[in-house]
């Protein structure tokens, strides 16, 4: 009798059959199983077994439920009588394992069929022993689980009824706790789409691992049409983060509540940009944004895809967009994708927030600087609006505390701004809106004197407005289309008089733009982004005064130096523009851990100017036209080998048209060409703890074709500037950040940087006027409870470079001293260090809230130097002191 063994597990039944076959066919195996040696039925004849039976059809015995539930395993030894035809004639239990196992085994083996045994080469009946093993085997994991929760961004409120759909068509909805669950799922990448009529569709990629449960948390925003009425709907939010599908290489995200509570911002969420890594500390009152060592004018600012000339009002006290209308701001210091261009520096994009479709909200805020109001909400079914306005009253505040004409000595910023928008929801995920914004700044300063040479007067103003229409469509797949045509006007004017020397620079411009941006997932591993970025401007300019006033970067001068009294004048008109198509792909590989994002942008710049050389007698004006097609490749890579670590690389070519005020035939050069540069950056991000992350980014930028003064003794006519300048900046920035948890958030940002310029390829490098070696910012905010928040901020920054004075000589014609300058930018303003504190208390007043806050800057009253100044003979040097301890008290009411 032969002895065979099998198992009850279906997963091993085929294998058992093979073993059986091997046992039957292999004499060695048969020999090895001595106990299973065949027993011939007719022993007297002693026939010879010439062929053992072979199991052809194995039938698995059902595992007895009672035994399975009890977790018992067993083996039943049976004797099977096989006929000469191969059928099972009889089966009896030789070694019982219990009634349940025995019956199951018997029923199974009776259904076996065999290739009959042969004795003396003839089919013959035979009996064999067969051991049937009932083994409880743990199945190897072949599926995974995906579950998670969907909440409202910011408030963390769970969302019920959100449809969660996978790319295999399986879908579910979130329960009352906002949770969803998928099981089982085949391992591999999964595209997850979240949708609800009132939500902005969100599509993301997850990776399901066999035998593992993936617990995901999705924070979503409401679509404006059907936003739920919640107390948190009006929460301010600032998101410095990449778009859903096309992520920038360097990005940081700050929640709304966090941004508002940062000390030193006076509640202006856009001022958070000043605290980000890579951003130099601006001089007090300048309002300039210097990113990664680029000139302030090289960093472009967009509000809802509409370019605006500046982010902050004069003096840097306030941003030009009302805080309550800001939903997100994205600061990309460099290496950005193909959808943007025309700037050699960074990129700042501000997104206005959606209005609540069911309620109306009103806020009012006042402090010593300005007062503002905002309103937003529904108008009618499918219609919403947003409106905000602000006006400074610092001049009035000062008048209340002093009867002196403070404007005699100090420039007092006067500003106002406003934004308005009406939106029509065309569907759950489509809307069209029209809106506009405007901003006005003016500062004036007058110094009276009995000495005509000491009389000074300066007035600067800047006004801009924008009107735009916008169409946005999003589908369930996450594809998104933005179309934004816009129109606007810029008007700026500088008039000054220093003694008898006048200065005037006025600009009136009409700006036109169109942005079309379409993002779509083309394949599960491929996202595409194509669009058109069109901008044009028609500008009329007038400039009069000294060639060196206002000064430009690199000028050998010192603060307060009287302008040259050699003057000239020029009026000119320019028309410039570019219609740049762009395309970008995001390839995902290695289970979404690697993203390769190549892109290209083609900017066909053109410039037409009405005067190529200065006016001369009765000669007719001779204009000039130039064009340049700039092909700008971009590439970024992101590799995240684990959820806690990622590595990024980026490179790109960037082009920038010459500034229109550099194209004067007298003061500049109408034929300046497009400047160009490259950005290189590498970044790592590590999640140290669940709420603590560290990001380090190294960067290098190189630019050429920058406008610089013509160093020749006799420059050619129309060539006061040349496009020979070069620049480079390199450094590393570090961000250690704690997300809001246990009522505490904060970060530490440090940038080590060097930025240099030279006036030609043959010249030596010199330090850039806006170079800051060290920029350190540490801030934290803590909720004390009872509506009380406290925030602190500490900043340290190296002073800007300045040129030393090595002597002076007397100008007898003008009765003043002129400095003799040493090596350009070889000394620095002393370093800056300041500690700021913010304390706020929120009171519930029925349906409204009242927040009282005190934002105290420079609590240690440190005497920071903001600029170097000299006496009239340039023999003594001192510093202009920055802000002393400065409490800004204010209140914000919200309904």
């Amino acid at each position, binding site marked *: 009798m032969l002895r065979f063994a099998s198992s009850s597990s279906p997963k091993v039944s085929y294998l058992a059959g093979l073993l059986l076959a091997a046992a039957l066919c292999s004499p060695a195996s048969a020999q090895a199983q001595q106990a299973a040696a065949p027993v011939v039925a007719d022993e007297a004849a002693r026939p010879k077994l010439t062929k053992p039976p072979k199991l052809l059809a194995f039938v698995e015995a059902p595992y007895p439920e009672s035994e399975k539930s009890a977790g018992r395993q067993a083996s039943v030894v049976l004797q099977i009588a096989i006929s000469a035809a191969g059928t099972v004639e009889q089966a009896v239990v030789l070694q019982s394992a219990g009634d349940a196992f025995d019956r199951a085994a018997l029923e199974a083996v009776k259904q076996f069929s065999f290739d009959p045994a042969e004795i003396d080469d003839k089919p013959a009946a035979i009996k064999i022993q067969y051991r049937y093993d009932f083994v409880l085997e743990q199945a190897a994991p072949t599926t995974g689980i995906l579950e998670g929760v969907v909440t409202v961004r910011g408030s963390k409120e769970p969302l019920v009824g959100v449809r969660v759909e996978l790319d295999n068509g399986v879908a579910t909805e979130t329960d009352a706790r906002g949770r969803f669950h998928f099981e089982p799922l085949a391992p591999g990448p999964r595209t997850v789409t979240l949708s609800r009529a009132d939500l902005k569709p969100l599509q993301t990629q997850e990776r399901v691992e066999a035998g593992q449960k993936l617990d995901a948390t999705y924070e979503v925003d409401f679509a404006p049409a059907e936003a739920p009425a919640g107390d948190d709907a009006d929460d301010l939010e600032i998101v410095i983060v990449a778009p859903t599908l096309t992520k920038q290489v360097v990005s940081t995200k700050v929640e709304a509540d966090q941004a508002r509570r940062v000390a030193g911002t006076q509640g202006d969420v856009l001022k958070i940009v000043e605290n980000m890594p890579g951003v130099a500390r601006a001089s007090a009152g300048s309002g300039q944004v210097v990113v990664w060592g680029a000139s302030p004018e090289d960093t472009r600012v967009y509000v809802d895809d509409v370019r605006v000339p500046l982010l902050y009002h004069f003096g840097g006290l306030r941003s030009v967009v009302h805080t309550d209308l800001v939903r997100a701001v994205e600061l990309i210091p460099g290496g950005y994708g193909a959808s943007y261009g025309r700037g050699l520096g960074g990129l700042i994009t501000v997104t206005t927030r959606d209005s609540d479709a069911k309620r109306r909200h009103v806020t009012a805020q006042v402090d010593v600087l300005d007062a503002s109001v905002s309103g937003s909400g529904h108008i009618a079914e499918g219609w919403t609006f947003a409106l905000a306005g602000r006006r400074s009253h610092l001049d009035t505040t000062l008048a209340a505390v002093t009867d002196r004409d403070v404007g005699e000595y100090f420039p007092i910023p006067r500003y106002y701004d406003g934004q308005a928008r009406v939106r029509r929801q065309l569907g759950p995920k489509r809307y069209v809106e029209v809106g506009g914004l405007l901003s006005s700044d003016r500062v004036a300063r007058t110094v009276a004197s009995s000495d*005509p*040479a000491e009389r000074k007067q300066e007035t600067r103003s800047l006004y801009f407005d924008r009107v735009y229409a916008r169409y946005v469509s999003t589908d369930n797949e996450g594809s998104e289309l933005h179309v934004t045509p816009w129109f606007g006007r810029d008007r700026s004017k500088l008039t000054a008089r220093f003694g008898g020397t006048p200065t005037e620079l006025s600009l009136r411009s009409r700006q036109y733009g169109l942005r079309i941006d379409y993002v779509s997932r083309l394949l599960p591993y491929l996202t595409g982004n194509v669009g058109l970025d069109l901008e044009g401007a028609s500008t009329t300019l007038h400039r009069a005064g000294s060639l060196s006033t206002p000064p430009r970067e690199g000028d050998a001068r010192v603060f307060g130096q009287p302008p040259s009294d050699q003057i000239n004048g020029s009026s000119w008109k320019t028309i410039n523009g570019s219609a740049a198509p762009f395309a970008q792909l995001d390839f995902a590989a290695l289970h979404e851990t690697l993203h390769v994002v190549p892109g290209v942008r083609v900017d066909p710049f053109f410039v037409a100017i009405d005067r190529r050389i200065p006016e001369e007698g009765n000669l007719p004006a001779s204009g000039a036209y130039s064009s340049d097609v700039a092909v700008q490749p971009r590439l970024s890579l992101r590799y995240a080998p684990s959820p806690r670590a990622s590595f990024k690389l980026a490179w790109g070519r960037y082009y920038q048209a010459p500034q229109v005020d550099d194209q004067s035939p007298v003061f500049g050069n109408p034929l300046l060409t497009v400047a160009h540069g490259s950005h290189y950056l590498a970044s790592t991000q590590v999640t140290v703890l669940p709420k603590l992350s560290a990001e380090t980014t190294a960067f290098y930028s190189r630019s050429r074709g920058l406008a610089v003064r013509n160093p020749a003794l006799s420059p050619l006519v129309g060539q006061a500037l040349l496009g020979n300048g070069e620049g480079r900046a390199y450094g590393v920035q570090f961000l250690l950040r704690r997300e809001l948890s246990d009522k505490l958030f904060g970060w530490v940002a440090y940038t080590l940087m060097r930025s240099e310029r030279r006036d030609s390829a043959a010249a030596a490098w010199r330090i850039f006027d806006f170079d800051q070696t060290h920029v350190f910012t540490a801030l934290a905010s803590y909720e004390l409870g009872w509506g009380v928040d406290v925030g602190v901020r500490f900043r340290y920054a190296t002073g800007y470079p300045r040129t030393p004075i090595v002597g002076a000589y007397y100008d*007898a014609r003008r009765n003043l001293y002129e400095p003799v300058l040493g090596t350009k930018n070889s000394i620095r303003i002393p370093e800056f260090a300041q500690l700021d504190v913010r304390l706020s208390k929120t009171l519930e007043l029925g349906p409204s809230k009242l927040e009282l806050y005190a934002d105290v800057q420079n609590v240690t009253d440190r005497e920071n130097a903001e600029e170097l100044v000299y006496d009239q003979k340039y023999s003594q040097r001192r510093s202009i002191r920055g802000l002393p301890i400065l409490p800004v008290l204010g209140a914000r009411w919200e309904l």
Partner: protein
Amino acid sequence: MNVQRKKAPLCSLLLAVGVSACVPDFDDDLSRVAGPQLLALRGSPPEAKPGGDSILQALVAVPDGQAAPKVKFGLCLARKPLTQLGPVNQDCLAEGAPEDVLLSLGEGTEVPARLPEDACRSFGPLQPAEEAGKPSGRPVDPDVTGGFYQPFVARLGKQVSVGSVRIDCDLGGAAREESVAFRRQYRSNENPSLARVWRSGGEDLDEAAGASVKAGSSLTLEATWESCPVESRCGDGACTANEDPSTCAADCATPHGCTGAERYVSYDAEKGAVVGRREGITVAWFASRGHFQTEQTGSSEEEAADSSRTRNTWSVGSEPGPATIWLVIRDTRGGQSWKTFHFDVTP
């Protein structure tokens, strides 16, 4: 005037509302002459044609009892690049500058000088001479009065001063009719002069006689200059616009201008027209003791028609002894002259 002094009391208040930063106060006083110092440089005449002559003169203030060092004069021949903001190419300031950069003129308080023939091309409105294979360069920008200047350098020990002689050039870049009109109306500058200086409410000061003043007192001084005619009128004593020997021999037989705020014309390149103007006048005040309330006073071009007088207060100082004050009058076209008065500061 030290304007910064007025800012200090307001500084804290303004900073408290975040208006601006605070400007430090300096104790410098340009009116105080503590050692030999060059206070003025002029050409006489103050304006000349290319190739013309002018006597370069220096006012060296020497406090009582100190010796006057020599002044070394040099004519700067190097054009100033656009990247330098001052009135002169800084190569001309270097001691031992080569002769093709700084032409030595000699030593003394006055030296004769002849303007280069190409002064209007090097420092004026005419384009520089073409170099081989290259087009002409850019003309020099005029000053606020439409003038161009030949710079010269004066060294007094280690002190370096720059003076200038206005160059009488034809217009560059103007239409022919404007050039003709300019040439017909423009008259070279005349150095201004202080007509009178007197104690406020008291007697005139005399350069030769001297005066006395009490230590610790304050002395208000007034000065005046010639009141120039508002309109050209033959017989007014000044050969002005549209007058020449053929039309007004009385004024132009021996051409001379007015020693006050003269009327003149300049070419406004933006308007493409010749426009009439009037000089501004300033008076710089210097003292070997004490200090003046304001370092410089005067009238701007806009005010010049209404005023030919100025005043200042001299805080004499508490120490008795000899004292000297110097008054330098300047017009906006580069003309200068001066007066010196000696005092005996009594206890």
